[in-house]
């Protein structure tokens, strides 16, 4: 029998746990309301006296490295998702820890993937206590079925940096998979047989963790340049045959959707940016790798050409379509967090205008500003959005974990946040009365674009005014919702919510925005 968990009501009207994995939590207070105090966390002071003067930090394998780090029960091990579905290092590190007999670890990946479902064995056997990071597929089900000992914690990319920096999460051992590294621990993601682009997700870990391991399948003589990760922060280097399966790391070419409805959504988004006057010389935008987002870039590119308009910068995940924009001179820069396809990887390695960024510069909310709020527009997806523009991106409508938050929450800070969503999926309306899991507050979501019309948040009177006279199908969100419910055969039943919290959704400032509940 699990102990009763005390709940509190947050400013979004959601019940959230007061205590998670033994740490007291601050309930969400509203956008920009929570004022952090104190000083940042820091890694322990080390001395060069304890590291080899010749710079060679190579040890024979991960087990040895973990032992030399003093791995103990209850520690926090971190990994990163820049190798995505192809990653081999996270499970290799966790299994090495299991071999050493460690128990009750917290696994702190920047994101987990269904390909890492091997972690379930380690959760079952007690090696891992809980996961703080995105969970989907089998790991998502494991969590929402209430089988994880501790509670899951989901954070945005920026929120992960914030949590590390603010000392909410103390990383004992960071294990960084590096497509190229030298014996000193300098590491780079843009070259090597497992090249993936940027290593930004591992940067915070390299700065704040007690111990830092670099694992590579392309060990080069010093110096490895560019050093996205600095060897001066690294304890040990481990060489392995392969850090990941390149075929599953990046898409060969990210594919544009062929669905007429999705193409229509993409075209509406591009036309909206044009008609609202957001697409103008020197503007900036961010688009992800989803089919709609890619297609949107293609439409926008055509409109930029026709209007003779050039962007100052665009933000990745980079894809072939953003790279084309850069190479055609339609943007001055790509500021890139991760490369989604081989064109993105190639461009990052070769083009000085294609720049690596980290979650610190891009998204960290507890910093002196970040890039996300400087974007003119961002195009995002969602699983549900409600009539008050609140959105859910982490769970299915039935409460099962579906996606990580990624940079989704961080991007809500953009000047114009657009959710590009189909109006229903498999008869399930996307526009609902109330979202299952609140991931983004409606006050930050400006426009919802569906294949049946575009709804503008009534708070954005300026946008409403700017597109007056446009031929776009601007409608109220209630109107679109009513049409969908007509098509789908009425309002859907509400699935029964569980009573036991299994995970929490953090807001970008570390407060608790919502709870994921156990489902049967």
């Amino acid at each position, binding site marked *: 029998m699990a102990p009763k968990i005390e709940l509190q009501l947050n400013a979004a009207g959601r019940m959230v746990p007061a205590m998670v994995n033994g740490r007291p939590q601050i309930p969400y207070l509203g956008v920009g309301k929570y004022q952090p105090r104190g000083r940042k966390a820091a890694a322990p002071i080390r001395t060069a006296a304890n590291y080899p003067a010749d710079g060679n930090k190579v040890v024979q394998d991960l087990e040895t490295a973990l032992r030399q780090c003093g791995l103990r029960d209850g520690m926090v091990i971190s990994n990163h998702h820049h190798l995505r579905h192809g990653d081999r290092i996270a499970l290799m590190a966790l299994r090495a820890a299991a071999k050493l007999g460690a128990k009750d670890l917290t696994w702190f990946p920047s994101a987990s993937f269904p390909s890492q479902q091997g972690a379930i064995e380690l959760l079952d056997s007690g090696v891992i206590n809980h996961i703080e990071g995105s969970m989907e597929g089998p790991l998502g089900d494991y969590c929402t079925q209430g089988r994880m000992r501790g509670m899951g914690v989901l954070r945005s990319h920026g929120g992960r940096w914030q949590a590390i920096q603010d000392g909410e999460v103390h990383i004992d051992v960071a294990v960084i998979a590096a497509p190229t590294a030298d014996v000193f621990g300098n590491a780079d993601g843009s070259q090597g047989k497992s090249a993936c682009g940027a290593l930004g997700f591992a940067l915070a870990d390299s700065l704040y963790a007690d111990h830092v391991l670099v694992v590579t399948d392309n060990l080069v003589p010093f110096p490895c340049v560019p050093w996205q990760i600095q060897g001066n922060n690294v304890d040990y280097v481990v060489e392995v045959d392969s850090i990941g399966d390149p075929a599953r790391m990046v898409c060969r070419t990210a594919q544009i959707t*062929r669905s*007429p*409805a999705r*193409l*229509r959504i993409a075209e509406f988004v591009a036309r909206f940016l044009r008609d609202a006057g957001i697409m103008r010389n020197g503007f900036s935008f961010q688009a992800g790798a989803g089919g709609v987002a890619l297609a949107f870039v293609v439409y926008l590119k055509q409109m930029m050409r026709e209007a003779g308009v050039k962007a100052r910068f665009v933000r990745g995940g980079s894809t072939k379509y953003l790279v084309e924009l850069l190479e055609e001179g339609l943007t001055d820069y790509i500021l890139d967090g991760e490369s989604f396809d081989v064109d993105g990887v190639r461009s990052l390695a070769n083009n000085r205008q294609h720049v690596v960024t980290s979650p610190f510069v891009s998204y960290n909310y507890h910093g002196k500003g970040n890039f996300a709020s400087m974007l003119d527009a961002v195009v995002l997806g969602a699983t549900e959005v409600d009539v008050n523009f609140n959105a859910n991106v982490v769970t299915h*409508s*039935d409460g099962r974990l579906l996606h990580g938050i990624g940079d989704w929450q961080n991007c809500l800070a953009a000047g114009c946040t657009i959710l590009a969503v189909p109006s229903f*999926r*498999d*008869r*399930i309306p996307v526009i609902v009365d109330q979202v299952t899991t609140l991931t983004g507050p409606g006050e930050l979501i400006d426009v919802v674009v569906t*294949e*049946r019309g575009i709804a503008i948040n009534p708070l954005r009177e300026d946008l409403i005014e700017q597109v007056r006279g446009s031929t776009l199908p601007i409608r109220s969100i209630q109107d679109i919702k009513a049409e969908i419910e007509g*098509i*789908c*055969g*009425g309002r*859907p*039943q509400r*699935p029964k919510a569980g009573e036991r919290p299994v995970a929490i959704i953090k807001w970008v400032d570390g407060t608790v925005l919502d709870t994921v509940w156990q489902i049967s």
Partner: protein
Amino acid sequence: MSSSAETGTKRVGEAGRWGDDVRSDVHVWIEPRERGGIDIVLESRVKAYYGDTIRRQAENVLEQLGVHHAQVLMHDEGALPFVISARIEAAVKRAGLAQGKRALPDQLPLPEPTPRDRLRRSCLYLPGNQPKYFINAALDAPDGIILDLDDSVHSAEKDAARLLVRNSLRAVSFLPCERMVRINQLPLGLEDLEEIVPECPDLILIPRVKAPNQVLEASQRIEEIKARHGVSRTIWLMPILESALGIENAFKIASASAQIAGLTISLEDYTADLGVAKTAVGNESLFARQRIVNSARAAGVAAIDSVFGDVDDLEGLRVWALNLRALGFEGMGCVHALQIPVIHQAFQPTQEEINQALRIVTGFQEAQQKGLGVTTLGSKMIDPSIVRRALKLIERAQAMGLVSTSVPRSSLL
């Protein structure tokens, strides 16, 4: 694909599709019983949201079909209500029950009847047994949507597709498009008419027409069904010529009935009949296509071309469609939404053509006011035939929303 099987004395019926790659459909299996009422087992990817609704609907549909005792298994992949009704009805009928009965979904308000000379630049084919395409098809605004019961439907699924298309004519809004149905070749097509005609499609395409009597047979059956169901509005016909003989009889076919609104061709079947390859340039079908245009014009109906099959080659489509317009076609079939804007663009007159037509008409009006029958524009003589062509172009441009000035034809000629 199995439709029915004997189990003891009662037949089992099933209809619809399920599986990981299936969306918006439902598989229904039904075994009639002597007693015990209706027992429904429902699997659905939307069970948490619409499970109760689906059960209630299934019970209602069975009640309407007079089925009171049966075991029913439903495997639902997010089918919309009009699909669920159609699949249950198909399964029940395949089980040998409910003959002559219908379970019709609620009827949306019928759109206005379409005029005979409506714009038909793009006619989008939808496979009649794949409901996932129906609900969003009208969003991209092709001039016409063709719900296809013919080639795109497997021969074992004709009965099920017929009910699905019938239900969609009642329950799906296809506005602003013209609602068209391609029936099967006669005599199977006559069975399609029984279900389709009462739902007032705007136009029916009749495939593989070789001679005018086939059109007359369909047309007579349509009038009989309309009379039985109290339908008075016109249902237009468009014969599809698919053979050398059909092309030879093109004019007789085009003028066989006052309900004919257009004449079209299937190039795949026509080139197969000739025993030649269908090429990108299309020289092998040039005669047939010109014959269609000429016969259609002579009969006062529109000439509509076949589909352009390569969805990825939008540039090839554009060139093909420009050629069609130059030959005198008014539209063509299409198979993907991406083709629609390309086709519309190709079939629309250029601004220069519109301006020239307006100058001709204005010049002619001024000449008439001065009592002159003929005038000149630049170095060219303007006579009534040139004015008629200019007026036709302006009318079409108006229908496409390219010209706002109204030029009343009657005042001129």
